[in-house]
């Protein structure tokens, strides 16, 4: 789809005309990320993070494929082969650090992308499908990142695999059987490592597929924008190329500066020293934590310490952790306000910032040891997290009086819109 004023692909060169007739792939690209895609003229830098996430995915796929050429997914030599990459393979240290920190960069970008969506109501009609696909991508990313972290077969890899697969043993009745089936044994070992490697290789391409659906769904209504007012006329839009290719290019340069700064000057800052100790099934490290991007959800898992009615604490924690993400699937229907952008929703905006703080508190608690006061703080923050989505959002969207919206994107940008005067007549 596109707006009626979208520029049409018109190849000049005979060869490109020939290609366009046989397989209109260049036309497809032109309409997706070229001059054929009209985009609201007022996008701010928060709209940069979709492209950045795409760049991160490609970065992970490229570095991952070359790392797989040197890595051996056998429990006896996986750790050594990782060290072989770090010490012996030409540029291996850089490729592995790029991949490990690339995962962190990917999650930074995606968290900002998601919270952009929370603030600007990007999940609202007619963009629900984009949002739902986005949550699917996030879940796939979490699975992929978890399995990737297991591959070096260090202490954190091993015990991370042990703890996370044990989550499934919380399922009533069949839990232990499911746990053994997932691992192909009674504890993580060769079978588990091999299947994690296989799936870690596969899932990024599944993500790529869902990303294509995500962008396809985006191009049906077109991009949202900071006012949340839909595009009304040609003056509200500019062609994606060259306007946003240039803006996104600048954002990408800034991103790459920050990413390479971490990569070259602090490549282990986000890792755990314990993962440079080979996996030892006989000894658990004193303080096991997942990677930082799982901390908020890990805090929710650990917040449940008491049995409730027939539900053991372990099952409650597991259910709460998964529900914390699954609740995002219902977001388009929990927030019923017709106004999209947080800029025009004064009450919503305050709760939005509280949610950001709540996530940061959960993240901090998830990275801390399982002792007081962190347990109690994560219990309060977990309660608030669910309260925000299940109670506060529906109520706020019913009772709030939004601020007056601009007539159009053009009016919001220029202060006046000629078509507004026409509409008033």
């Amino acid at each position: 789809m596109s707006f009626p004023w979208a520029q049409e692909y018109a190849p000049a060169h005979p060869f490109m005309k020939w290609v366009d007739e046989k397989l209109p792939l260049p036309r497809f690209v032109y309409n997706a990320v070229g001059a054929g895609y009209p985009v609201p003229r007022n996008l701010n830098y928060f709209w940069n993070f979709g492209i950045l996430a795409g760049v991160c995915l490609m970065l992970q796929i490229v570095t991952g494929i070359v790392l797989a050429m040197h890595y051996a997914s056998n429990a006896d030599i996986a750790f050594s082969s990782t060290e072989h990459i770090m010490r012996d393979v030409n540029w291996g240290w850089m490729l592995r650090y790029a991949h490990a920190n690339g995962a962190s960069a990917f999650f930074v970008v995606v968290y900002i992308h998601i919270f952009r969506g929370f603030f600007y109501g990007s999940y609202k009609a007619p963009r629900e499908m984009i949002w739902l696909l986005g949550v699917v991508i996030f879940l796939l990313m979490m699975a992929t990142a978890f399995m990737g972290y297991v591959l070096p077969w260090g202490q954190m890899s091993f015990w991370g695999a042990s703890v996370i697969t044990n989550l499934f043993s919380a399922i009533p009745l069949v839990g232990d059987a499911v746990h053994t089936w997932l691992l192909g044994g009674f504890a993580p070992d060769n079978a588990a490592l091999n299947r994690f490697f296989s799936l870690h290789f596969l899932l990024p391409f599944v993500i790529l597929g869902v990303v294509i659906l995500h962008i396809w769904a985006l191009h049906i209504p077109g991009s949202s924008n900071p006012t949340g007012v839909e595009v009304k006329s040609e003056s509200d839009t500019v062609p994606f190329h060259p306007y946003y290719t240039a803006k996104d290019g600048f954002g990408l340069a800034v991103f790459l500066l920050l990413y390479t700064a971490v990569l070259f000057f602090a490549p282990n800052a986000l890792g755990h020293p314990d993962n440079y100790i080979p996996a030892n099934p006989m000894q658990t490290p004193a303080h096991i934590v997942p990677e930082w991007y799982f901390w908020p959800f890990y805090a929710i898992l650990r917040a449940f310490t008491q049995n409730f009615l027939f539900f053991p604490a372990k099952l409650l924690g597991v259910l709460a952790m998964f529900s914390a993400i699954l609740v995002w699937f219902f977001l388009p229907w929990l927030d019923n306000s017709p106004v999209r952008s947080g800029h025009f929703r004064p009450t919503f905006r305050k709760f939005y910032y509280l949610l950001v703080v709540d996530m940061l508190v959960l993240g901090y608690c998830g990275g801390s040891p399982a002792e007081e006061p962190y347990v109690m703080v994560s219990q309060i923050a977990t309660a608030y997290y669910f309260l925000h989505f299940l109670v506060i959002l529906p109520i706020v969207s019913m009772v709030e009086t939004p601020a007056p919206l601009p007539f159009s994107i053009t009016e919001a940008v220029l202060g006046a819109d000629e078509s507004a005067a026409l509409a008033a007549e």
Partner: protein
Amino acid sequence: MTDNAIADTSDTTAQDAAGLGVRRRDFINIAAVSAAGVGGAAVLVPLISQMAPSADVLAESSTEVDLSAIKPGQAIKAVFRKQPVFVRNLTPSEIAAADAVPLASLRDPETLEQRTKPGHTNWLITMGVCTHLGCVPLGTGEGEPKGEFGGYFCPCHGSQYDTAARIRKGPAPKNLMVPDYVFETATTVKIG
């Protein structure tokens, strides 16, 4: 099927009117789809079953442990199915402490007698795998923390086990699992 359905319209209408709407083609259709469905489901069996433990993993299922060197108050970690097993020689005071706990107060009520073999109540043999999320609790080695109840302490999420390795505090739902084992002689056990 649509092509023929269109071609047969007059015919089927006549049959419908007579209450004879079922055609031979419908039978073939249902039979073909059912056969494909059963075949598809059968293909899933090896695809799902291959993920279960393989024969060599299942074969590693018994371990012999020599108890003669373990003095009262000491414990060792043995290996069973590539997982730790705690073998602990309880002191009389540890046995008394375990027996003094009222069963009703326990999350997973079991007596020390139920968790040991008759005549060998001082030998507490359990898996060294926390029933919360599978970490190895501390408390076997000299000087390791044993938790508030003098048994085992799991550092991952703070579960505490008593001198009968029963869950007393923290998120774990069950007591440390007692594996199948037999005393082959007075000082050797075969686990698994």
